[in-house]
């Protein structure tokens, strides 16, 4: 935790002490060719999700795998980025908040092994608040429609284990809680605007969307309680793909 605080303070120091004359607030509009100002990005995120519950230290056996198997779960999420700053010859940087949902269910059996009408379920809502750096200089400067990007920040997951009768409980401990952790991601986006620049300009004129991307990203969402918390390890290391819009 101390290391994290120091890193945060260092980042803050860089922002505060750097000669800010080269930085710009967001991406200003331009007239030739016309482009509206650009300050935000929105990602629609889909991908497989592998909860790391069985990696919790001290566990005997693999209770998650035993309960739900080891197949990937479907993750659906949204991310909203505020592209606060434009770094010349690099790209945009700013905070990004993502929220998503993953759930899984299985038919229960009775303690004596009979088929049961009950189901048990685990819902996970993974979230992250990260600094997002999108290096769009290749696309804006050289016309190469590829935008590599990276994310670094905090992760957080809310989760709930339940059965047909409601939230699960074991020896008086309710099966719900939240887990803190870290989030690191690297991705590559392809600018669809390269396929039809006319349509891109029309869309910018009409609704203010500057760029549209398809992207793929690999992330390490480690929701392990940051070392101190007794957390259910509901994070995942996996890839995600989707559409992104800058506006």
């Amino acid at each position, binding site marked *: 935790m101390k290391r994290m605080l120091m890193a945060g303070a260092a*980042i803050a120091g860089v922002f505060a002490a750097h000669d800010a004359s080269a930085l710009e607030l967001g991406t200003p509009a331009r007239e030739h060719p016309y482009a509206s100002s650009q300050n935000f990005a929105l990602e629609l995120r889909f991908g497989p999700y592998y909860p790391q519950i069985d990696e919790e230290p001290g566990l005997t056996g693999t209770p998650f795998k035993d309960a739900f198997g080891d197949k990937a779960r479907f993750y659906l999420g949204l991310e909203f980025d505020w592209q606060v700053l434009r770094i010349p010859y690099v790209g945009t940087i700013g905070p990004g908040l993502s929220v998503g949902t993953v759930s899984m269910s299985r038919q229960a059996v009775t303690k004596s092994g009979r088929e049961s*009408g009950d189901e048990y379920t685990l819902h996970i809502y993974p979230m992250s608040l990260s600094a997002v750096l999108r290096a769009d200089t290749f696309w804006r400067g050289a016309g190469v429609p590829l935008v590599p990007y990276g994310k670094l920040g905090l992760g957080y997951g809310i989760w709930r284990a339940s059965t047909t009768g409601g939230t699960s409980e074991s020896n008086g401990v309710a099966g719900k809680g939240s887990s803190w952790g870290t989030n690191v991601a690297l991705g590559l986006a392809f600018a669809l605007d390269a396929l039809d620049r006319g349509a891109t300009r029309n869309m910018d004129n009409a609704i203010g969307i500057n760029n549209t991307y398809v992207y793929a990203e690999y992330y390490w969402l480690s929701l392990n309680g940051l070392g101190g918390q007794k957390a259910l390890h509901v994070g995942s290391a996996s890839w995600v793909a989707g559409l992104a819009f800058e506006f």
Partner: protein
Amino acid sequence: MRLLSAFVVFVACLFVHVTPAFAQATINVANEKSLPRLDKNGNQIAKRPLTLNPEAVNYQDCLDEQQIQFTLIMTGFEANAVIQVWAANGGVDCGQQINRASANQLCWQVAPNVPLTQQVDVKVPVRNIMSGASPFQANKTDNTVNACGKVDLTNLVVQFLYFSPGNTAAAASKKDVPIVVDTVGPNPPTGLKALPGDTRIQVSWDNISGEGGVSALTGVSAYCDPAQSAAPTTVTVDGSCTLVPNEASTSTDAEVDGEAGTEEDAGFTEVCTDGGTQTVAGSDCSSPNFVNADGTPVVPSAEFNAKYQCGSITGNAGTTVVATEVGGVPLTNGTRVAVAVAATDAYGNVGRLSSPVCETPEQTNDFWGGYRAAGGQAGGGFCATSGPGSPAGSLAALGMVVAAALSMLRRKLEGRR
């Protein structure tokens, strides 16, 4: 000429004084589309929701001996005229004498004669209205509780007949009020199946048919009878003997009757187990509370619902009900329960019960129990994150540092602009 004038005056007077009722008497019913309902004591009661045809008469209305209040507003009536109240199937005119008084009469009287006043409340018992409808007959009416559950969907008409003084053969005027009666619920579901759960039982079915098909259904209810299901039985098990190799016979866990196992042939020993008693779960499933004295399935009433209903769904799309409690008492693991279901139609009639199936609730496995049993430490609720070891404080400090840095940078950039 005088004679002709006198004749004209006589005819005019005759027309005015003898037939005014025929020409002018009218009967209207106030608020005909939403008639007040009364209980058997005459107190006004709330009707069913609009989704359950509140103006119609259903099984429970019949059981409760409800009455329908018709507020008649009459004009142009004569002294000594008679107003009678009859009922018949739709399309039958009770104003004709042949339909009221003959061997083949089609109408039946449902209330005493109405007093002759300009406005009067006529209270007609719903059982009277349906008492001559099929399967009953107009001249063999039944207005007892026996009628409830017998009359299926039927369009009846309550007819208020005005008879001029001295002429009860043909009604001079009438007012018809249609009343729909349906006291028979849908058929019970088929393919009933029960599965155990943790203090609950899931009941599912394949299909429900009935008047109007599935579209006429508004719900399905499950009924549980924990006390009366077929109980486990104790049976006597005979002793048995088998031949086992000599080596194996020394390691078996079976109780060996040394006296019985005296014969040894070609390396085999006869091993016998003692007979005894064994508890076996009852294979049949029945509940005396779910059938009538004559063996026919019960048609649930409000009283029956309060006692045995243990789950329900609304609409006609579902095929599963989860039974959790009966009579306010939760189902308990290990207690065998007889479960039956009945469907509800668009008039709020609950159909007869299905044959019961029996099941015993039992604790089930789940992820959380497995995780905690494996030594997992998490859980306890969302507030548990603020307990010892939570990074919330440190994270808040980090967030404030980042926010302060961003704020300073923003001020610098805005100053430059």
